[in-house]
């Protein structure tokens, strides 16, 4: 690649990164529930992305690649803090009772508090699907987990939120009709 096209490519890459910054921040915020930490995680993600951009062969897959880096940064951050606990099962904010959610007047705060009560693995899967509109396959790739795990985590996450926010009556009994496949 000649120097000029290399410069153009680099500039384009940085522009794409900047476009993604708000979306990365939103996701980081949804995962860590802390604006300052979310900022730090996004910054770290951007630095790593720039440093490793040669590993991204398909620019069309850039978004998923960035969210993978963000997830790794987030996991690293908590591993540094908690060497022992399994990050996937970690509940970052533990509120006292379901009444807590009902008592909060602001619908946004209520929903965020409910999301914060989810185990981290469920929270990540659900927010990647709901906020980014990712396919289950893409989420499986970002999270490095089987697609069946994506579906079961998503199911548990939405069920718990529904119970907390909508007085949802979960599905009862055994499922007679298993989901056979997704796209």
């Amino acid at each position: 690649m000649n120097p000029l096209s290399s410069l153009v490519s680099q500039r384009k890459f940085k522009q794409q990164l900047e476009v993604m910054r708000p979306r990365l921040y939103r996701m980081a915020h949804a995962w860590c529930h802390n604006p300052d930490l979310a900022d730090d995680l996004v910054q770290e993600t951007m630095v790593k992305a720039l440093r490793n951009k040669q590993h991204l062969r398909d620019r069309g897959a850039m978004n998923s690649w960035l969210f993978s880096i963000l997830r790794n940064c987030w996991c690293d951050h908590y591993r540094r803090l908690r060497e022992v606990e399994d990050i996937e099962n970690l509940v970052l904010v533990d509120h006292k009772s379901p009444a807590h959610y009902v008592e909060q007047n602001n619908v946004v705060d209520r929903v965020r508090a409910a999301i914060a009560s989810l185990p981290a693995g469920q929270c990540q899967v659900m927010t990647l699907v709901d906020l980014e509109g990712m396919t289950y396959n893409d989420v499986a790739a970002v999270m490095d987990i089987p697609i069946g795990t994506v579906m079961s985590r998503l199911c548990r996450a939405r069920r718990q939120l529904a119970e907390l926010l909508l007085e949802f009556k979960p599905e009862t009994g055994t499922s007679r009709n298993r989901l056979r496949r997704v796209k």
Partner: protein
Amino acid sequence: MKEHFSDEHLNAYLDNQLDREERIRIMEALPHDAELASRLCKLQKVQEMVQLAYHNVEAEKEPDNTRDVARNFWPAVAASMLLVTGLVTGWLANNHLAQPTTLVDLSKSIQAGNQLAANQQEWRLMLHVSSGDNKRFAILLDETEQLLKTSARENRAVQIEILTNGAGLKLLEQKDRPHIQKLQKLARQYNNLSLIACQTAMKRYKAEKGVDIQLIPEAGTVPSAMHEVIKRQEEGWSYINI
């Protein structure tokens, strides 16, 4: 016998992750299974609430001394998302439950899918208008009149609230427009029809045009469309975006 679909099935349907054959099975079951429709609606609400909670989280990133001010803008964000909620719920009813062609049919479908509403004797409908399209106004008024007439004839208790904001304020503006006479006549004739304008949208109108919007005398106002939508939803009203 009703076919059973797991929550995983419904989630995959909601997220457009099913292949065509599986999708069709659910679509075919929905019009005949109110419980299934209700479960789907609830999962959809959860999804929309998550989207609402992080709709514009970037806007909260203000310097510390202005962060409290920034928080006050959240109701506006919540409003826009809840309107999306209503639109989708309306779409759901419109496309899956009974293929309704009139507001009466649509109301029946939504009533069936709204557990809170289904427990109530009275039909309580919030019709939200945010577009300034005259054709929509005409359809809205024809359908509303039809619903009010039918309900009166069948002795069915019904409450209708038409909520306007954005370009929808034109519906209630005191101007010589084709629909105005009919709207005023309906409002005078039926005391179970209320017309509401959003004050936030009215302020925005003034900021943009430099003059206050003049509403017809039959119209009332609420401080915020969002609060009205939330209040009504909590009270079990069904919501339709026109």
